[in-house]
């Protein structure tokens, strides 16, 4: 099953409420995905630095030591802030270099995201408890994406929690399952993509990031995905400027989009949109199969 949500604010005065509104949406979908949850918040942009989010996978990590070692290894200024079992590094160096170093040298943790704006948090267990523990309510920003997971393709561990991110300020949440992810993963590894899990959805995230690195627009990458990704999916993809929604051509996995003058919201079900201000008067529709819906701050 799984529940997915996305909220993109058009009205800047709501930015302080982004986390609170997103948490209302996620809490509605606990029963669609009771085993784990995660969310990406596109918040305050760093200037001259890249943010990298990590989470423990087993045991405690000395995040301060990791920050020092990363700084020494990459010749960059690195600071760190911890949030529960997560750490947010800020590095003056290149994000890609730091991500690779962290994946190679900190096996006790996963790298969740890198970028100027994005921060990803995730956990295992009751989604409502995760949302509370990681304080989604008080996070502000321009847009957010979230996921509640009912595991199908892989184990209930933090490695299977969404969102997945392999590229700068890009992430993906997925409701469905892919059938050609192993072959596609091999191809992407040969092209230099770094994977941290066996999860099919990470392959979709890496595929889109790889297409965009090669010059595709977000819309173009998603349209190429219709040819290259085999399986069932409703995706919400976040980028630095906005987000997009796409469903596979068979469109078994649910999705509803709602739009007002103040926001655009996507959810697996309308009940996750109902708590948003003005939802009862929103323009509401079900996204058509194999069709890209995208919103951007710059468009």
């Amino acid at each position, binding site marked *: 099953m799984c529940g997915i949500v996305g909220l993109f604010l058009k009205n800047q005065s709501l930015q302080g409420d982004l986390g609170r509104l997103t948490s209302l949406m996620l809490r509605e979908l606990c029963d669609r995905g009771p085993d784990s949850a995660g969310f990406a918040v596109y918040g305050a942009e760093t200037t001259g630095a890249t943010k990298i989010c990590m989470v423990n996978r087993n045991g405690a990590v000395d995040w301060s030591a990791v920050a020092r070692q990363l700084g020494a290894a990459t010749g960059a200024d690195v600071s760190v802030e911890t949030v529960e079992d997560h750490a947010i590094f800020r590095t003056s160096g290149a994000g890609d270099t730091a991500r690779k170093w962290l994946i190679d040298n900190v096996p006790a943790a996963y790298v969740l995201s890198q970028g100027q704006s994005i921060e990803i948090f995730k956990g295992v267990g009751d989604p409502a408890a995760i949302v509370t523990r990681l304080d989604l309510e008080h996070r502000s920003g321009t847009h957010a994406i979230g996921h509640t997971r009912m595991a199908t393709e892989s184990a209930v561990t933090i490695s299977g929690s969404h969102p997945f991110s392999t590229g700068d300020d890009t992430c993906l949440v997925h409701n469905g399952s892919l059938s050609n992810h192993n072959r596609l993963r091999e191809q992407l590894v040969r092209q230099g993509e770094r994977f941290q899990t066996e999860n099919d959805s990470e392959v979709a995230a890496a595929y889109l990031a790889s297409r965009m690195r090669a010059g595709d627009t977000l819309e173009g990458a998603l349209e190429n995905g219709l040819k290259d990704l085999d399986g069932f999916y409703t995706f919400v993809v976040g980028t630095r400027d906005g987000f997009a929604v796409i469903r596979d051509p068979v*469109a078994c996995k*649910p999705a*509803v989009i709602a739009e007002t003058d103040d926001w655009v919201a996507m959810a697996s*079900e*309308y*009940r*996750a*949109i*109902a*708590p948003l201000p003005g939802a*009862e008067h929103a323009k*509401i*529709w*079900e996204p*058509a*199969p194999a069709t890209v819906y995208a919103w951007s701050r710059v468009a």
Partner: protein
Amino acid sequence: MASPSASPAITRNSVLDLAQMKLREVNQLLHDTDSGDFLIRNPRGAHSLACGLDGDMSITIDGHVGYYCAGMNKRASVTVNGNAGTGLAENMMSGRVHVKGDASQSAGATGCGGLLIIDGNASARCGIALRGLDIVVKGSVGHMSAFMAQAGNLVVLGDTGDALGDSLYEARLFVRGNVKSLGADCVQKEMRDEHKIALRKLLDAAGANADVAEFKRYGSARNLYHFHVDNAGQY
């Protein structure tokens, strides 16, 4: 017939507010009676609302409903002033279900009888495995609509998605707009007087102002009913 005194909380013309009552309480109250008019407020996308009704009752729901609204409906009339999620009026037996907005996938699935009216669009698999229910969609329907539909009618005033009527049995499909593609064994058929009369009745029952002359009829070519020996080599 249940007497009103058997369920004192209920009277005719009751307003049932889901902001104040639990979903299960509302459904139970509706099950405990078999007549009257009810207005349900604040559905906020709740699932399985007004399911399994069996009585000459009239339910109006103000707002958007979630999955399986009015499923298995018998005799009752259910009106939704909003949109409906997956599986609207699934397996309905009789009565009338009217959604003023759009319906998500599998609306009217396996429906056996009665009338389902959708003023907006219905998405994929509308009327899948239909078994006698009549569906009138004033907007368009999505792909795989009327898949394996056995009996009943699907009337679409707008367009259809891909693979309309795939593996169709004896249900009748009437479409005014464009058919994106026909499914396996579904073909356009002649619109004879008996079909025009039947379609007129359905349009009138649904309050749809449309000219029957603008519709085309689709049905089963019946080529999949029997095994063709020429296909033996396929196995």
